[in-house]
């Protein structure tokens, strides 16, 4: 389903709101990851508000598209997007990572309706998503499988086992969205363990590859639409993103990968987001 300009504007504002939710959640939790969730706010907004076939009030609807979050540590962006989409009340967001909360530090199946699979240990969501896509193919089901992976996650061999398998089985109902933000805990990915040429690797493994600006709603939507029309091949959308997007002092800084802002930093972060007035359309703007 393609997208109109008016809706793009609306989703950009929603992504900014979700970024503000994320900052609030992380401050309340006192721990968690900042850069990844902020960087993927546009992708998750596009997924939950345009791309996915889903029913927030019926999370177990059997015909729903499946969204597997393989890099479970960026779950604040998924939680905030789900709350904004109507899966659960917004006030639950402040319970991130707290005792008894459905919003576990890493997402857990069974704790929060709408979470398709437990994740955290990297690489595992890739195989689970492939297994789901295979089940849909065996049953000739119409639902599609989307999996969000981080770039650093591709250092796990399991990802490539899954990528090899998916191509072998012609899983055209499967789309990977890779958060190519170039950072991981210990530093830039290309310093820690180079991933490039990432797109060429997927091509060599038999996938259809699309590279986009991961902050451009139109490009995200159009890439997922293109994936639907690729036959006999799974598609990977490599989403080039800025880690910490929207919060000037977090952007591009790998030190913000795994820590939350304190109260003062959060005030500054929210100020930074509000001055953007929801007008994020491209990292180059």
């Amino acid at each position, binding site marked *: 389903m393609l997208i109109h300009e008016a809706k793009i504007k609306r989703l950009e504002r929603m992504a900014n709101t979700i970024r503000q939710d994320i900052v609030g959640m992380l401050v309340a939790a006192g721990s968690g990851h900042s850069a990844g969730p902020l960087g993927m706010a546009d992708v998750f907004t596009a997924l939950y508000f345009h791309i996915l076939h889903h029913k927030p009030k019926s999370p177990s609807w059997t015909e729903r598209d499946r969204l597997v979050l393989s890099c479970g540590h960026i779950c604040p962006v998924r939680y905030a997007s789900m709350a904004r989409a109507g899966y659960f009340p917004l006030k639950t967001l402040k319970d991130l990572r707290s005792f008894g909360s459905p919003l576990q530090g890493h997402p857990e199946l069974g704790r929060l309706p709408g979470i398709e699979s*437990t994740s955290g240990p990297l690489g*595992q969501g890739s*195989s689970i998503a492939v*297994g789901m896509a295979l*089940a849909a193919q065996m*049953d000739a089901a119409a639902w599609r499988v989307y999996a969000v992976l981080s770039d650093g996650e591709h250092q796990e061999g*399991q990802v490539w*086992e*899954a990528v090899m*398998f998916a191509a072998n089985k012609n899983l055209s109902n499967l789309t990977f969205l890779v958060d190519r933000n170039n950072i991981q805990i210990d530093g830039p990915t290309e310093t820690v363990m180079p991933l490039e040429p990432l797109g060429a690797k997927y091509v060599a493994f038999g996938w259809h590859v699309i590279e986009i600006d991961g902050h451009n709603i139109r490009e995200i939507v159009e890439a997922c639409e293109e994936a639907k029309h690729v036959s006999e091949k799974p598609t990977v959308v490599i989403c080039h993103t800025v880690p910490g997007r929207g919060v000037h002092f977090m952007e591009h800084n790998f030190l913000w990968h795994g820590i939350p802002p304190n109260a003062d930093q959060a005030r500054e972060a929210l100020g930074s987001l509000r001055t953007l007035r929801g007008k994020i359309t491209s990292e180059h703007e």
Partner: protein
Amino acid sequence: MSKNTTLNQKLFSPDVELIPTRNGYGDGLLELGKANPAVVVLTGDLAESTRVLPFSKAYPDRFIECGVAEQNMAGIAAGLALSGKIPFISSYAVFSPGRSWDQVRVSICINRANVKIAGAHTGVSVGPDGATHQALEDIAIMRTLPNMTVIAPCDYEETRKATRAAAAISGPVYFRFGREKTPVITTPKTPFAIGRAEVFQGGSDVTIFACGPLLYEALITARDLTKAGVSCEVINNHTIKPLDVKTILASVKKTRCAVTVEEHQIMGGMGSAVCELLGGRFPVPVEMVGMHDSFGESGTPAQLLKKYSMTRKEIKASVKKVLTRK
């Protein structure tokens, strides 16, 4: 000595049938394939030796060759299970769950995914392949995982039943087989239920808890000792998790001592599970027959079981020793 009339009547005869337990897996899967369209079978390049080849021919649309990639296979099975299938992962136990433990922990167990993991080639009796291929730690690494059921069937017939029973319960199951031909102890009439230990021979002086094909050695030893005046109770403790607390305690309250027998490290295996239970509920002397913190090596099954002290000789010595500790 009370006889269990449902057991193989040729149990103690020289011409007792010898069939590998893994064949029971293959035959059980064929029955399941017919009975339940949700059952799918995965293997990692080991279709023949895990005995899933007949299933792959009968139900090619439900057979998934994963190649040599056990971690991915565990995750794919989880994804299939979360989408309504009942996947059986078939490989050697040293690879699966040996190489895929984290995937079994997170993708299968935390998810409570309805995945069944069949570990072939367990114990030193794998033989000539040597230490790398002899799974002796699989029970330990599986039974520490919440939500996991762990079974070590004793023979062909029980493995066939365990395969069917695994599909009938919801949630992760691990079960293990041997490679070699081993005596057929049970019959289609022998009761089998996951979580229910069976008294295969009644006795009053000592309880021998055994699982897997070594149960046969326990039964032979018990027969000989009973003739010599030591009344041995032999319990087929096939389900290591959840343990049959009631049957185990009832027996030990009567005999007041126990010997455990398994082809697995004594650390973390079936015997450990029994000791954990008895330590908390009814402490009695226990002697353990199994692998004593060592890896195996190449050789014939008989040579290896002898070298690593898992024969009827050690079972008998353990019974005598535990009786002196009562």
